[in-house]
């Protein structure tokens, strides 16, 4: 009897500890960094953010790299690096992320950026299991930092310490975390775990109890609340405190992800108090549920066990028969599922769902082939390791799509280039440089003639040359009048002649005075016109030179781009092959993971089946000796 109880209690303790450990890594799921408000000062930086927020991390990374390399994000140079590092991290590129953060730190970034980079680096190292390095990175973060960063740093440090098994230090760290923060439930959960693991059960219970009673506003928090109650329930079962354990199990939602474990625990709380009748209620409820986890399978054995304890041998026998049928049925289904995966049919639906957009490439449980029932692989598929594999596969498929698109682009670019070359060759005769040069020479000669004329006018004070068009006409008319007067002087009435001569002299004088008093502005206007002419000639010369250069450079440019396109096409082709190989390798790895999961489950169910058959035989033996069972 003592041995039996010891075994059960040990199993309960292990269960409780297992529940406490599982959630440690989830605290940083909501990252503080993503919540930082960004004021966009360069459109190209905003463009990258738009892609990232739209679910296209790959495109966002490319745009950040291009923006940085082409100097298009001068106002966000530091932001770009820290974003780039973070995006690399979220795209599963730990090495690149680490290189960016190290560079940031080396280049002496501003204190806030430096600290954020250290924190991100600590995260990378934590994820890679390099806990010592992660702690060194956290120790580089300054004391005087913004509140949000401080919180994230403390959480990260606590995670590292817990991963190293230093629960006492982790608890001390988490005890300093500010209260009433949005992360409080996660902090309290981990704090409860850390306290339990450092043998401070009373304090640990307090924190887990607080989580178990918290007002959870979203599904993630409700699940956390259920998990805390389940953990406490099993801890109390291990401590033989069955009534309190029961109370915790009763807090768990009947339809939540932890309800199966709660119902099983609830049954055990009563069973340990010898109340098998009450234990039957949750176990019977559990046994009607989909066989999706160990707790439901367990119930198929727990129900007949309770009947047996109640001496209801007939019902017990029937329940064992039901269990044997269910286990046998599931074993057949598992065999079929394993065969299906081995035939490479795991990917059929996924491959049908492929889209060219990164954010549209998804893989859900519904995408599994019907032979591989999701209830068999739910735990594996929702696990971190498999999710990372799915991400890798998703990314590889996107890379493949991107390369195919680029291969098409290369054909388009080459076509455009060929078209331009053709157009160039057609237009080349019209761009004959000798014609242009000759025309330019004529224009320059003409300009020099104007300049010489200007200098003569200036030197000789040639008023007539400075006259405007209207004045030129007036001068011509006056000259005609002078000629008439000279030729007809003797034929004219002397008085009329004198009067006309007087008028002629008056108008000539006036005109001469008009021009003579405005020589300087008239000469200035000519000089200005010549200067403008010089400018136009200079521009025309430059354009002529540009045209000449373009004419000479075009064939080299066509050749240069042509070589580039050929080089890139070759590179694309080589990458396509390697990416396809990696896709195949990734698929094989995941297939092996799924098969491994199915085989483990098959072994487990086979063990259940043996157990049920053994129990049925035991009941039959009992019937034979006591006459209680037929």
């Amino acid at each position, binding site marked *: 009897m003592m041995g039996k109880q010891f075994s059960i209690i040990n*199993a309960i303790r292990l269960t409780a500890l297992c529940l406490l450990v599982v959630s440690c890594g989830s605290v940083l799921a909501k990252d503080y960094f993503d919540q930082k408000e960004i004021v966009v000062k360069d459109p190209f930086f905003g463009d990258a953010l*738009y892609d990232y927020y739209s679910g296209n991390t790959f495109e966002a990374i490319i745009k950040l790299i*291009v923006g940085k390399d082409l100097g298009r994000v001068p106002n966000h140079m530091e932001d770009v690096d820290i974003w780039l590092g973070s995006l690399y991290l979220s795209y599963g590129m730990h090495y690149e992320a680490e290189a960016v953060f190290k560079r940031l730190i080396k280049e002496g970034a501003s204190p806030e950026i430096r600290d954020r980079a250290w924190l991100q680096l600590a995260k990378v190292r934590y994820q890679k299991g390099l806990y010592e390095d992660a702690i060194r990175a956290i120790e580089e973060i300054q004391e005087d930092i913004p509140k949000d960063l401080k919180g994230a740093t403390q959480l990260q440090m606590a995670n590292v310490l817990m991963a190293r098994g230093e629960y006492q230090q982790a608890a001390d760290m988490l005890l300093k975390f500010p209260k009433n923060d949005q992360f409080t439930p996660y902090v309290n959960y981990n704090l409860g775990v850390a306290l339990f693991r450092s043998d401070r059960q009373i304090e640990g219970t307090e924190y887990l109890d607080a989580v178990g009673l918290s007002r959870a506003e979203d599904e993630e928090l409700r699940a956390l609340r259920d998990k805390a109650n389940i953990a406490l329930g099993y801890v109390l079962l291990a401590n033989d405190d069955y009534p309190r354990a029961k109370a915790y199990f009763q807090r768990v939602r009947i339809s939540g992800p932890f309800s199966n474990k709660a119902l099983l625990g609830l049954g055990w709380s009563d069973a340990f108090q010898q109340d098998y009748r009450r234990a039957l209620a949750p176990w019977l409820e559990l046994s009607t549920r989909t066989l999706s986890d160990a707790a439901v399978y367990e119930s198929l054995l727990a129900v007949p066990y309770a009947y047996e304890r109640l001496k209801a041998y007939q019902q017990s026998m029937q329940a064992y028969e039901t269990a044997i049928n269910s286990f046998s049925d599931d074993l057949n289904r598992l065999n079929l599922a394993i065969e299906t995966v081995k035939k490479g049919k795991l990917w059929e639906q996924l491959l049908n769902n492929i889209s060219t957009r990164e954010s549209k490439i998804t893989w859900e449980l519904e995408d599994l082939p019907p032979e591989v029932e999701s209830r068999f692989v739910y735990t594996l598929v929702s696990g971190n390791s498999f999710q990372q594999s799915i991400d890798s596969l998703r990314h590889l498929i996107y890379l493949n799509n991107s390369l195919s698109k680029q291969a098409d682009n290369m054909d388009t670019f080459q076509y455009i280039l060929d078209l331009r070359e053709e157009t160039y060759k057609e237009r080349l005769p019209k761009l004959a440089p000798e014609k242009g040069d000759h025309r330019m020479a004529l224009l320059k000669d003409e300009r020099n003639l104007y300049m010489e004329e200007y200098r003569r006018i200036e030197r000789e004070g040639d008023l007539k040359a400075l006259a405007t068009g209207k004045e030129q006409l007036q001068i011509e008319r006056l000259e005609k009048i002078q000629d008439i007067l000279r030729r007809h002087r003797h034929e004219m009435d002397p008085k009329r002649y004198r009067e006309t001569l007087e008028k002629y002299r008056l108008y000539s004088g006036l005109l001469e005075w008009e021009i003579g008093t405005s020589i300087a502005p008239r000469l200035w206007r000519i000089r200005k016109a010549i200067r403008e002419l010089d400018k136009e000639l200079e521009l025309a010369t430059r354009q002529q030179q540009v045209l000449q250069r373009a004419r000479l450079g075009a064939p080299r440019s066509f050749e240069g781009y042509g070589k580039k396109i050929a080089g890139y096409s070759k590179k694309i082709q080589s990458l396509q092959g390697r990416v396809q190989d990696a896709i195949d390798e990734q698929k094989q790895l995941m297939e092996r993971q799924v098969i491994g999961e199915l085989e483990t489950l098959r072994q487990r169910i086979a063990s259940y089946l043996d157990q049920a058959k053994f129990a049925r035989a035991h009941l039959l033996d009992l019937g034979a000796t006591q006459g209680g069972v037929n």
Partner: protein
Amino acid sequence: MKKFIVSISFFLLMFGVGYGYSADDQAKTLDDKVQGLKKEVMELNRDLFILEEELLFPTSTQVAVFLSTDVGNFFRLDSVELKMDDKVVQNYLYTQQEVEALSRGGVQKLWVGNVKKGKRELVAIFRGPGPNGREYKRGTSFVFEKGSGTKYIELKITDKSQKLQPEFVVREWE
């Protein structure tokens, strides 16, 4: 009997919580390989991004139109139509995720194209539910001088609190 059943029960429950296939050495090697491939494809895409711009949208003719939103209490963007010199060059329908990306500070590169030097007119027509959820259609135009350098224009949708109306602002980025 009880001992056997119950101990199996807890043993299985315990592993039922977190049993799974842990990443082995092959997974690690493959992860390294995938990371290397991602880096190479990214470098290639970076080069091709620049090549595409050089070939298709040279600086002398390039015009890029960006779109951003602010707050969005009085207007939710459903679609935008863009005309350059009275010719439709872009018609864009937004998904919920894209609208959220804009509201989080993202700036969409709505259109990039080639335009000759001189005076040009850009017209943008925005559609979507406006104040009080009624269908809203608003246009805005912008005349600009295309010179020899690249021209970047931003269309910004903001909330005008005083009038309880959205406002559509166009500006050039330096």
